[in-house]
Every structure is written in C-alpha cells, then in structure tokens.
C-alpha cells in the first residue's frame, strides 16, 4: 500500500514540472534558484529522491513539509481531527436520513412520496458538492444569516487533550459550523443510500419470510424493522467503508469552499505547492484509514450476516 500510494503521488507531482520555482520569489536570481533547488533536494535524480523518501519512511520519518518546514506527518495529523468531524457528520447525515427516507419511499412505492424522494435523490446525486456548498452559503449564510459561512470550532482536539469542559462548550458551535459543509459533502451519499435502501427494501419485502411474518399478524412496523430492514440494510453496511473513502475525497473541495481547516484543504494546497512530503504523508494516512475502515466493515458484516459465518465454517 505504501509503495503504491507514494509512488503514484510522487510521480503525479513530479509530472507537474520543477517545483523549485514555487519556493523562490519572482525576482530570484539563477544562483538563488539553484541554491533553493539544492536546499530542498530537488537537484537529486528522481529515483534518488523517491528512494530517500521511502528509506526515511521505513524508519517512521515522513520528511519535512517544504512549505511549513515542519514534520509533514505532524501537520497532517493536526488537520485530521477536523476532517474526521466533518466526515463523521456527513456520514451521519448520509446514513441516518437515508434509512427513513428509503423506507418511506419503499413502503409508499408508486405514490407521491416515492416520486418526491426518488427525484430528490436523483438531484442529490447530480448536483456538484462545491456548487451546493456555495448556494447554501449564499442562502443560509448570507441571505438568512442562520448559519456560519466558514471556519471550524474544534471538538475532538480538546476532547483528546482531556479538556472536556472546552470540548463540551464548543460542541454546539462545532455542530453549527458543520451543518453546511456536512450537507454539502454528505448529499451525494445521502441520495445514493436512500435509493439503495429503497431498492433493497423493496426486494426484501417480496421475500417469503416477510409474507409469512405478515400472515402471522405481526404489526407492519415490526415486520419492517425486525424482519425486513435487518436484511435490507446489509448492502448499506457493505458500502460504509467505501463511503468513508468517497466522503474523504469529497471533503477536498468542500473544505476549500467553506475554509474548513481539514486534511482535504491541506492536501489541495500542498498539491498546488508541490509540497511532495506533505502530499505523501497525507495520502498515506488517508489510505491507511481507508483500509482499516474497510477491514472493520468486513468484520461487522460477518457479525451481521450469519451466512458469512456459516460460509467461513465450511471453508
């Protein structure tokens, strides 16, 4: 994973040309440019630059950010809590709203409810997140002045530092600042998950065991929740891990629009700056989180679906 991720990002950044010019003034002399190139290590052959990075990485050294001149991983980890807050909030929107909306659409199939929800879901999957973000800023932030337009109030950082008072005190404002970017990031996933829950539930509701449950005279709500939904939302669980990765990708643009100081914005700036160590540290971290999450999801799936355990047992 490390070799693949770092090699791809390294080559992609190098394809953009010599990054030295980003670190010198416009009036820099040729001597100054050359001195900077040497100071930053860009005078070495590409393979040497890469191998040097990988060698340091093997010892846990992710190198120094060229822009900030501080350990790259430290800078990335500083920005991580903000992105986790945004991603979790977006996931919460995507999942918690998708399930009731999907159920509503499925049980009222063919009605105005179903039509409206499905149409909204299609809209949500079509609209670009950055456009949605800007429109929400204009409407909710500027016109109505209901919600903050940009910025972030930390919750996880004071929490991790043990400052529970500050964390709890910040929580309402944290949520307030998360609403607009969270909706912008989570809308696509919400829309997709709604349609997924709807189609999955429709399929499950046709099954024999559901017909049996109804025949036994069980209340419809019990049939839905206890019997149908337990199987209908398995596909949703499957994609949660992928969902997280997708949401992480979406935060890059949204964090920039909302001036949200997370990893997405940091990486966006680092790519523009050709800050190779910072990009690689960020990409490795995100790839690692993505892989771990998918592993976790696989483990959860096994617990949710007894058939997986049986299959394991036979294997």
């Amino acid at each position: 994973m490390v070799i693949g991720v770092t090699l791809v990002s390294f080559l992609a950044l190098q394809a953009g040309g010599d990054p030295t010019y980003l670190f010198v003034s416009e009036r820099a002399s040729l001597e100054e440019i050359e001195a900077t190139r040497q100071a930053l290590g860009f005078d070495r052959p590409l393979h040497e630059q890469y191998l040097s990075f990988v060698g340091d990485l093997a010892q846990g050294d992710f190198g120094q950010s060229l822009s900030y001149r501080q350990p790259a991983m430290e800078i990335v980890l500083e920005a991580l809590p903000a992105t986790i807050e945004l991603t979790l909030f977006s996931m919460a929107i995507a999942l918690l709203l998708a399930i009731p909306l999907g159920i509503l659409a499925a049980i009222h199939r063919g009605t105005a409810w179903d039509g409206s929800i499905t149409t909204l879901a299609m809209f949500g999957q079509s609209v670009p997140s950055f456009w949605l973000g800007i429109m929400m800023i204009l409407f909710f932030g500027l016109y109505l002045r209901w919600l903050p337009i940009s910025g972030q109030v930390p919750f996880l950082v004071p929490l991790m530092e043990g400052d529970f008072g500050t964390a709890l005190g910040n929580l309402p404002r944290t949520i307030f600042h998360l609403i607009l970017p969270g909706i912008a990031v989570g809308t696509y996933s919400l829309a997709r998950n709604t349609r997924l829950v709807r189609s999955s539930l429709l399929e499950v509701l046709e099954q024999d065991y559901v017909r049996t449950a109804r025949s036994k005279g069980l209340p419809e709500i019990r049939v839905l929740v206890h019997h149908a939904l337990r199987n209908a939302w398995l596909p949703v669980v499957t994609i949660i891990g992928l969902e997280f990765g997708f949401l992480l990708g979406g935060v890059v643009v949204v964090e920039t629009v909302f001036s949200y100081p997370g990893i997405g914005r940091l990486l966006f700036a680092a790519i523009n700056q050709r800050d190779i160590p910072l990009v690689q540290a960020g990409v490795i971290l995100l790839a690692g989180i993505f892989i771990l999450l998918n592993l976790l999801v696989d483990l959860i799936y096994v617990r949710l679906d007894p058939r997986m355990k049986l299959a394991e047992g036979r294997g």
Partner: protein
Amino acid sequence: MKLRTLGARSAAAGFFGATVMVAACSQLPEDAIVVGLSADITTFEPGMISSRDNANIARHIFAGLFSLTSEGDHVPNLAHTLDISEDGTAYVYTLREGLTCHDGEALTAEDVAYTFNRIADPENRFTGNSPGFVFTSIGFQDAVALDDLRVQINLARKNPIAFGLITEIYIHCKDAYEAMTLDEATSNPIGSGSYRLASWTRGSEVVLEKTREPGNFQRIVWRIIPEASTRTAELISGNADIITNVVPEQIEAINRSGRAEVQVVSGTRRMYLGFSLSEGSRQMPGGEAIQDPRVRRALQYAVDVPTICRQLLSVECERATGLVNPPNDHPNLTPYPFDPSTAEVLLDEAGWSRGTDGIRFAIRLQAGRARYVNDVNIVLAISQYLQDVGLDVEVDLMEWASVYTPLLHARSMGPLFFLGTGGGLWSPIYDMTDLAEVGSSTNYTQWDDDRWFSRWTDLADAKTPEETRSIIDEMLQVFYDDGPWLHLYFQPDFYGVSNRIDWKARRDERVFLFEARLK
C-alpha cells in the same frame, strides 16, 4: 405537560438559542479587526517568509529598522537615523533607546546584527525573501554591532536602493532565537513589533495581540479563506472587516450590500506584454519581426488597454508608459493611444505588409494561468487586438508555477509573453532594476539596448538628485520608444472593506493595520 406543547416549546427554545448563537457569530468585537486572506500562512520564521500574505502578518510581529510609508517615504522605526558611508558600502543605523522584544529582552545593536547574520547564515538554509531577494540584491556581507545602539550593515558594493530593501528585514532578538530550534522558530515568533502571536490554527486563523503602540485594535484576527466567494460572503455578512483579492465580478455585490465597499487601488505590479529578443526567439515564428523596434512601437498602438481594463477588470486602470510606477515615472510621457490605423501604417513602413491572406506574420503569445486578475481573458483579448492588425497569434496558456515560470527563467518563452512584476513607490530605480544588467535574472526579454544599460554607470556616479532624475528620464524615454515591453497597465488591487472601520488600502500590496480604526 402535553407532548405537543413540550415539542413546541423545545422547538422555540432551540430556535431562540440558534438565533442568539447566529447573532453572536455575526457580531465582531470592537477591540478586534478581522481580515480575510486568500492564502495560508506557512511560517513565522523571519528567514523563511516569502509570500505577501505571510509578510503582511509578520510585519505586525516584527518591526524593521526603517519603514516605507504608503507614499513610498522612508521613515524611522526601530532606528531613528541612518548614515551611509562615502563609498556606499556601509550603512550605520542608530537605534532608539529602550527597545525590547516581546519576551522583555532588551533589543540592542547586537540583536540587529544577529538578525542579519542569522538570516544570511547558509547553515540555516533559509529560502525566504530576506536571504534570497534582499540580501542578494544589496550584496549583503555582514552586520556588526558598533556599540549598544549602533549597528553597521556592510555591503559588497554601492547600491542606491539598499536603504529601501533593508526595511524588509524582520528584526528579532538574539537570546530568544538562540534558545529555539529552527522548527520551534517557525511557530513561536518573538518579535519587536506592535503585536505578538497569540494563536495560530494552521489553515484557519492567526490571532495577534497588541503589546505596544502603534495600533488601534487590541487584537487582529487573520482568517484564511481561500475561496473568493466565501470571503465576499463573510465580508457582506459582517464577519470580516477587510478582505483581500476581491474578484472583479463581485465588486458590485459588495458595493450594493450596504455593509461594505470595495477599495480599488492602482497597485505597483507592472503588467506588460514582453517581446522576447533572445537569439532563440529570433528563430521562432514572429521572433525576427519583433527584433525591429519599429514593429514593437507599432504594436503599442494595437491594443485597447482602457477597454480591457473596463471590461475585464471593471475599473479604469492606471496606464503604463514604462516600468516605473507613478508618481516616479517620466512626467512627460503619455500612454500610447489605441490607434489600430497607426499600428497598420507603422507595420507597413517596417516592411511587414499584409499578405494576400491578410496576415503580416505569425507569432506565439505565451502566458501562465491563474496568476493575475482575469489573466486568461486579458491575454485572449490582447491576442484578438493583435490579430485585428494582421498578426496570426497562437495563444499558449500554461500552468504558472512549474511550467511557465521555468520557461521565463530559462528565457525560452515567447516571442510574446504576458507577465506582471512587482514594483514599488519609494524609488524609480527600484522599479528599473528589473533591467539593471543585460544578464539580470529579471531581464526576461534579454533586451540589450546600450542606450539603457550604459546609463547605469552614470546613475551610480550621479552627484545630485536632479542629475539622477535627468538620467532616469532619459532612460525611460528610450524604454518608452524602443523598449522590450508593450506597455499595458499597473494591476489594480481590490480590497473589500466593511463600513465599520476606517482603513485605506495601500498601493504596494501591504496590508498594515496600525492606523485602522473603528468609525
């Protein structure tokens, strides 16, 4: 209590709380001023600061020996006098008494010498504006404390603009910085200015707190808001007092908001179309044609600069007649008028008549993207004007930093190229030093007219300001007539300023808040 009543009361309480919170969010305190910047800050290490935004914040933390006012005047700051030796290589500054750094350490001549020598020390591998541009330009050798209050800065050679460049150096104290590692110095500035760093949330905001005069606000909050529309929204909603880099399309929205207005200032960045006159360019299509000064002069009449400014920048630009910012420019030169008929006649006279296909000659115009205000559209507009007088222009737009910039430095762009270079208000010679020598790193055109370059010796030998001014005007006349630039405009800068405060934008891109105040 009935569920419905409880629900209604809860909703009302929630709405009220939200309203209070929003109201609280929107009110800026009276003791603080909030500035929205477009780019992140990367360091507070004095030797590494290079971007304009970074420098603007740092200047509130670190004072300089002298300062440059918004009109370009050189005024005392930490030092109250400057004496320059006869041969121009020794600059002796005398500090004011009783100076201290933010940690209480007395600031003496030893600290000033330490500042200069530390920044210049190759062991530190600093790549900021100070060691790079400033020290290279002035030929810095070393700095020596003569006594507690007098420090001598030694240069390799006489330099008529060293006094202005030295104002860029951020003065800091020796004991504090010797106790820190380079990493620590990045985020723990201990300065000599009016404000100290109170907090820095990377990518989000920088908060400065006042420690001494001058300054009318107790706190300055610099918020990092990269997206232009978000910055504008924050200004209009009352969450920011000043925003930089307003895009022209949003000027009207801000001015109509009733809460803020856009201040447009004619900046000091010289925007021009360069004629690449290198041997390599001569081999390119159109390269031979532009070697002829008559062709270059003809093309001066071909571009309607006022219309470009009005339509694409939404302002009436300050037109350029050369490379020196007004009011230091040649007093008697007027901008070339838009007169395509004259352009056509002059091109005919230069021997480049229209062919049967209507084309005089083909030529390539290169430019970087997203570097200057509306640059892509401006380049396309210029190319159209040139095509209207018979040039077959191939426009080549490329990524700025790692594609276009290397071409500039390698002198392999062109034959036509679009560029803007920063200037100043404090000395015409500062603006002219872009072409101090044929081999200057900033002589991108590789122009080598002896009527210009031979006069630098005369400038250095000039005995009086009047003599200096006379030489400058003669040089500028040559540049106007036969120079390597198609003179365009000085790039306007757009600042959004809330009606809450009284602050005037400077032309030199410096955002200094020492004199900003509440209305």
